[in-house]
């Protein structure tokens, strides 16, 4: 059930490595793989070699806040931990100066 939901919300459009899940991970993993294969998500900031995530770059940040205005979790976006940290910081700064909303009203 929960697997279906997370698949639907797979935001990460720009990775095309069709690698399946590495074996042995989690209870749900099945080697034969019914249905569609899960893509391994790659951090897009690592791919683009981004060292600084600018809080003024609203266009970029907007991609990581769904309608509700919350910060998109990395389990969905596939962003790596260091970059997620930078991203979260940038989003919070942007909110402070009204470039991004705290909540969707």
């Amino acid at each position, binding site marked *: 059930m929960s697997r279906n939901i997370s698949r639907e919300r797979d935001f990460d459009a720009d990775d095309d490595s069709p690698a399946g899940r590495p074996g042995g991970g989690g209870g749900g993993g099945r080697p034969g793989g019914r249905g569609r294969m899960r893509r391994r998500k790659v951090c897009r900031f690592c791919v683009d070699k981004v*060292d*600084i995530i600018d809080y003024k770059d609203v266009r970029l940040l907007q991609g990581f806040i769904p309608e509700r205005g919350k910060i998109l979790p990395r389990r969905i976006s596939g962003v790596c931990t260091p970059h997620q940290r930078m991203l979260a910081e940038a989003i919070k*700064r942007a909110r*402070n*100066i009204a*470039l991004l*909303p705290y909540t969707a*009203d």
Partner: protein
Amino acid sequence: MAEKRVYEVIFIVDPDTPEDEATRLSENFSHIVTDQGGTVTRNEVMGRRQLAYRIGRKTEGVYHLFEVEGTGREIAELERRMRVSDQVIRYLTVRVDEERRRAEKLRERRARKASKGPHAAAAAAAGGGRGPAPQPPADDDEA
């Protein structure tokens, strides 16, 4: 202590203030910085923008960006002035020098790695363990 700190100060000016007054304001701020011994390395108007949420009945604002080099004392003064000013509806100061230095280092490391190429291991062995030769940072776009 010797090194300069770099700050980015972004502030939102009330959209109802006339343009000449807004420029006067920003000039004023830049004088405050220089009076305190800092330098304004960048002073730009990012333009009028819809606010993501209302701030004191305003739905719009004019964004200004300063980049200030200094010790931090001028930031204190600048922030005090902005807090008092009615035209400034919001401001944010971010210290950026440390972040930039870190990014610079990462980029250098990447450049070094790239220039060494796939035969790095063999070259290192031939070099007799002297370690990688210091190399100037390749193709840096400024800042």
